[in-house]
């Protein structure tokens, strides 16, 4: 057994986290910043943070992840990191020539209290920022929230570039939240089918799913441009997908630039996608083309075709709040039974939402915000499930408990596909169902006796 020291008996823990279902803020900020065209993320702290985040993102995407660091030494930690950041800014613009540097903080620079805005202003005043180039920033103290908070903070940081000229430009801002490049591409495809001009930010498609062509570009073609971010202040409205990932940025645009916003769930599964498409149609004053309605119908068709295999199958899940909320709604809609669920990200709103979505079920779901995978595993030992959904770290529970396992979330370190195949939208729903069904039926084929073994399922 790989997790042989995990007992079935659950004891309350107040201080010790074992096998976390979250990581720290800065990596979220780094991922978000990669969705800005020509942007080099910069980690203001010790160089280890940057190395760890780059490694984790590289392993997840199998793509180059460029980011720089202030490389704090003990001296910088005592006297402040201003000199390091100023030097870094000069070096980055000289050597790598990005359009924009996106600075995020770390627990180190937060604890010593470096004021990034002041340092940025100083860099601009002393001519370290070439004309037409930019520095955006956000604070990402690692001891508050989680990687999701860091993502949200950097996206909010992007909105500070937005300007309200007083003249609406007819575009809709769509803030996709922490989804894959393939998902971002799918959202743009759906909007294009509806002929709605959108500004998607951040947008990592074309950045983290690039081709192998014999050329390396530190700044690939993808990403939202600084010009688009500036013009986001003149949009007719903003759709923020995911309360945890995207709402703060949308509200900031509303407050600063009077761009009205609507916060939706992330469009995973049938109903959340319905709400997204419907909201986009209404905000843009357009109609939904037949092609999208047809895709929706295909998803409904697949649910009906294979409903018998999903019906009342128990699922344990771990991951991030926005994803888990949408996935729970999807699972419930196909009559699967979400049974245990943890997110490492704190926030009692999460537990409340999950309880609402599962209120009609004949049992009470185990759910915890600020929980860990050790607890999830213990819950599974006490009440076994049929399927586990989560990031790659779930493979240890999956093997020990002999559970079918759907890799979905961040990070996925041992499989490919998430870069290229979306799980948002109706097409993404089809992919999720295909994967879930494959797992359940592979298990059935493995476990059925020779007598019961079926050709057609």
């Amino acid at each position, binding site marked *: 057994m790989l997790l042989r020291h995990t007992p079935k008996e659950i004891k309350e823990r107040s201080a010790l986290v*074992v096998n976390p279902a979250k990581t720290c803020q800065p990596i979220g900020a780094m991922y978000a910043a990669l969705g800005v065209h020509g942007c080099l993320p910069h980690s203001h702290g010790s160089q*280890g943070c940057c190395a760890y985040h780059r490694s984790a993102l590289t392993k997840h995407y199998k793509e180059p992840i460029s980011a720089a660091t202030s490389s704090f030494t003990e001296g910088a930690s005592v006297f402040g990191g201003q000199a390091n950041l100023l030097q*870094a800014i000069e070096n980055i613009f000289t050597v790598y020539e990005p359009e924009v540097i996106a600075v995020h903080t770390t627990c180190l620079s937060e604890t010593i209290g470096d004021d990034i805005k002041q340092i940025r202003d100083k860099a601009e005043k002393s001519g370290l920022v070439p004309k037409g180039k930019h520095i955006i920033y956000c604070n990402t103290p690692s001891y508050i929230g989680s990687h999701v908070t860091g993502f949200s903070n950097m996206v909010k940081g992007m909105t500070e570039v937005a300007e309200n000229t007083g003249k609406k430009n007819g575009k809709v801002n769509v803030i996709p939240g922490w989804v894959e490049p393939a998902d971002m591409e799918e959202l743009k495809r759906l909007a294009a089918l509806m002929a709605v001009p959108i500004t998607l930010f951040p947008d990592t498609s074309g950045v983290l799913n690039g081709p192998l062509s014999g050329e390396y570009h530190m700044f690939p073609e993808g990403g939202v441009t600084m010009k688009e971010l500036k013009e986001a202040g003149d949009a007719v409205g903003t759709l923020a997908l995911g309360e945890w990932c995207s709402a703060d940025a949308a509200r900031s645009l509303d407050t600063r630039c009077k761009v009205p916003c609507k916060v939706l769930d992330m469009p995973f599964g049938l109903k959340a996608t319905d709400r997204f498409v419907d909201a986009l149609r209404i905000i843009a004053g357009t109609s939904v083309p037949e092609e999208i309605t047809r895709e929706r119908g295909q998803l409904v068709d697949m649910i009906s075709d294979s409903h018998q295999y999903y019906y009342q199958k128990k699922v344990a899940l771990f991951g991030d709040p926005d994803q888990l909320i949408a996935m729970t709604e999807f699972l419930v809609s196909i009559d699967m039974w979400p049974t245990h669920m943890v997110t490492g990200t704190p926030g009692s709103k999460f537990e409340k939402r999950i309880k609402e979505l599962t209120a009609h079920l004949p049992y009470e779901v185990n759910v915890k915000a600020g929980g860990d995978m050790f607890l999830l595993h213990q819950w599974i030992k006490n009440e076994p499930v049929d399927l586990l959904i989560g990031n790659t770290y779930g493979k240890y529970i999956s093997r020990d408990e002999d559970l079918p396992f759907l890799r979905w979330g961040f990070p996925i370190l041992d499989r490919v596909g998430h870069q290229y195949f979306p799980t948002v939208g109706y097409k993404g729903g089809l992919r999720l169902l295909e994967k879930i069904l494959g797992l359940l039926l592979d298990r059935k084929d493995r476990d059925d006796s020779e007598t019961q073994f079926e050709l057609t399922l």
Partner: protein
Amino acid sequence: MATQSKPAQWTPAEVKEEMLKKYPPKVARKRASSILINEALSNTTPEIQANVRTIPGIITMRGCTYAGCKGVIMGPTRDIVNLVHGPIGCSFYAWLTRRNQTDAGETGENYMTYAFSTDMQDSDVIFGGEKKLKAAIQEAYDLFHPKGIAVFATCPVGLIGDDIHAVAKEMKDKFGDCNVFAFSCEGYKGVSQSAGHHIANNQVFKHLVGQNDEKKPGEYKINLLGEYNIGGDGFEIDRILKLCGITNIATFSGNSTYDQFASAHTADLSCVMCHRSINYVADMLETKYGIPWIKVNFIGAEATAKSLRKIGQYFGDKTLIDRIEAVIAAEMPAVKAALEDIKPRTEGKTAMLFVGGSRAHHYMELFNELGMKTVSTGYEFGHRDDYEGREVIPGLKVDADSRNIEEIEVEADPERFAPRKSEEEMKALTDSGFEFKDYKGLIPDMDKGTLVIDDLNQYEAEKLVEMIKPDIFCAGIKEKYSIQKLGIPLKQLHSYDYGGPYAGFQGAVNFYKEIDRLVNSKVWGFMKAPWQENPELSATYVWE
């Protein structure tokens, strides 16, 4: 294949100039001292700048002190609960991300699959985290009752002044049956992960080594220092040692246990693999317990044979020497057969190695065996002695960054110190050319005109590849895909790209096959579509 079209040859000086050209003047000056065009001098080794601060904003390969301490040194020990005191990220990123294999059997203790953290919150940063740390240690003890709990400090811990050592001592005294000890390995200390290795090894030496005097069974007892069992390297070395009848008391720290460290002082010879991360432990084992040490290298079949013979010579026992020769004779045919098949496809190709504090040197052996030339190399976190040899150690300057890394003073243990050989025996060995604590570094093994570069960064790597076009580049995960986008295969020598083992005899064969696969893969020929390769045809082509 793209990699086979060699461009006009650039001189090393031109390559160096090109690498420095774009830097701001201060950066260029600093980097110039870390980029050495090897002179291959006959009497002295040229000097290189190493183990100095990373330049802010320059995209480095390096990690931090915590990574070196918790990730590298303590990570592979299976039966100690490694509790990270800090915000959640540091524990998360060091969770199963190095490929330290372990074998705990069906029922043995194994905490390597777990990540433990105090998950420090803002209130802990404001009011201090000691209370939470104590509670977390208590909870870990209550849940697992391990032999040892190790506490690791992350950046904010040092800043807010939590006394982790006092907490550890208090809890150790309270439990009585669980050793609790702590590492002040805040990420901002030192200039690279190397400082973390040092901090980790010092604490292991202080808190664990020497605790178990029980005599272990077996003959020819050695310690293997600086072998981390990446991809099962340690297993392959142990297999060979076992065949030879050599007893490995303690590996620092691949597939290690608490008891191995505690018994290390009962060995009769320390064999140092990774000079960078652990040579000082070998020195301390000698000073305190009287165990001599030698440098070995089990990367490369010839190097493995050489290292085994050296161990045999040290013990000087004919039975052992004969058995070692028999093992080498039994293992080499498979190695030779593999080389005979593969070498015609690798001979004459070129490699670049930028990794670690010893690997960049060790892996040159394997490339030599494949007939491949290492045209440029350097360490990520090496020191000058790893480049130039141990002779330079007395002259190394203590600077602001090395001063805050604890040096522990050891002296002969009044009860446990015992010379393993008499002075005459030692002298006879030395006179016969046997070299104790000897390491000549990487530079003497590099040809004249090759480039030795310390702390290579992303920009310089790209320039090197563009200008010199090696057939393979060896580095880590962060470098892998930017190099491969250029059409040059990158072999990870931290994680081995999830393959291995590459140590010992069977490992050498694995490596030959892997390099053959990489440098001869068809994929590098697929990068351009037919219409990109011959665009002009599209206008004249006519359907018939």
